[in-house]
């Protein structure tokens, strides 16, 4: 499997792998590390991956094993029920649906409010960075964001009128 093929097959698995890791570790940063380790493991085995029938299940199992390793390292003295952890089911995912709903509300905002809101909460940028990008001042960004949130709140409270 070449690099392009690997990315195409493995990167879409990241959200599920992250979800599983967070369910086992209850720690977002550690879960991220576990997923990255699992992807490196997959990369090492890339020549054999074409033979794997269910690549998602394979990737999830690898993540579980990395999580168990991390838990052992974090709590070396505590016994770990490895079998139970390996049986953990992937939590259901409705994030994409919820994201689309949120975007429907946000896309109704004026352009500047929508852009500022997405840059702030989706892109995790600071007011200063947003101001540079939207060619205004950080103070003005604060005002724009405040208005955007107020409008969103009204839309959510009274969706029919909006």
């Amino acid at each position, binding site marked *: 499997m070449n690099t392009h093929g*690997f990315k195409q097959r493995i990167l879409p698995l990241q959200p599920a792998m992250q979800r599983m890791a967070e369910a086992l570790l209850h720690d977002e940063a550690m879960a991220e590390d576990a997923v990255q380790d699992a992807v490196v493991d997959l990369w090492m085995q890339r020549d054999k991956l074409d033979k794997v029938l269910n690549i998602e299940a394979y990737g999830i199992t690898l993540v579980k094993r990395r999580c168990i390793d991390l838990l052992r390292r974090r709590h070396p003295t505590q016994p770990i029920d490895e079998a139970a952890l390996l049986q953990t089911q992937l939590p259901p995912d409705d994030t994409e649906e919820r*994201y689309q709903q*949120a975007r429907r*509300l*946000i896309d109704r905002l004026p352009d500047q409010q929508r852009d500022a809101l997405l840059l702030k*909460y989706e*892109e*995790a940028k600071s007011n200063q960075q947003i101001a540079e990008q939207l060619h205004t001042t950080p103070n003005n960004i604060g005002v724009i964001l405040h208005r955007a949130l107020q409008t969103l*709140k009204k839309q959510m409270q009274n969706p029919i009128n909006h």
Partner: protein
Amino acid sequence: MRDDFSHIDSELQPLLEVLRHHGDNRRRQEALASKIDQLDVSAKRHRWIWIGSTVAAVGLILVLIFPLQKETSKHPSMGLVAESNFTKEMVQQSVQESSPTASITTTKHPSRSHALIETDDQQDAILADTIALPLAIEVASALQLAEAAVPLEAPQTTQVFIRESTRLVAKSSNSSTRKSKELPITFLAMSSANEGDEFPNSITIKDFKL
């Protein structure tokens, strides 16, 4: 820059969490893609290092196998004189033409091969005067020197050995005095002198010194 949303109305928090979650996942995927690119570059680099080391190792082995070729480059004054093929039969014929009493026989040896040139008397040591072929001249020349170094008491034998696959030496020994002398024959590069063979049927001489 992560916002904790604590200052925002609780009604809006789930919506903003969804945005944040979506953004985080996209950034994680970008980080993973970057990591894969790094791994790819690293794997390619390792492949080239492996190829480079293999080529270097093969080169080193070639240099070790053909040390005499290396020597030629160190001593260009020796000069390239001729490139000829000599066979055992050609040498044998030349030796016999120049000295009817001389003979070349080949014998097998467990660890090395050698050609045995048996001489009955000192006259055979002047083979170099009459043999035309450069290989025979060189052999005879080395034989002369080797024999001169050992007291000439019959029976005397002088052998040509192949050393280290490619190097020829003339060894003269006297069974009664148990003395021997070994001198190199200064062919600088020869092929087809395989360990375990008899005297090579074909010796390619690229350079030699008279």
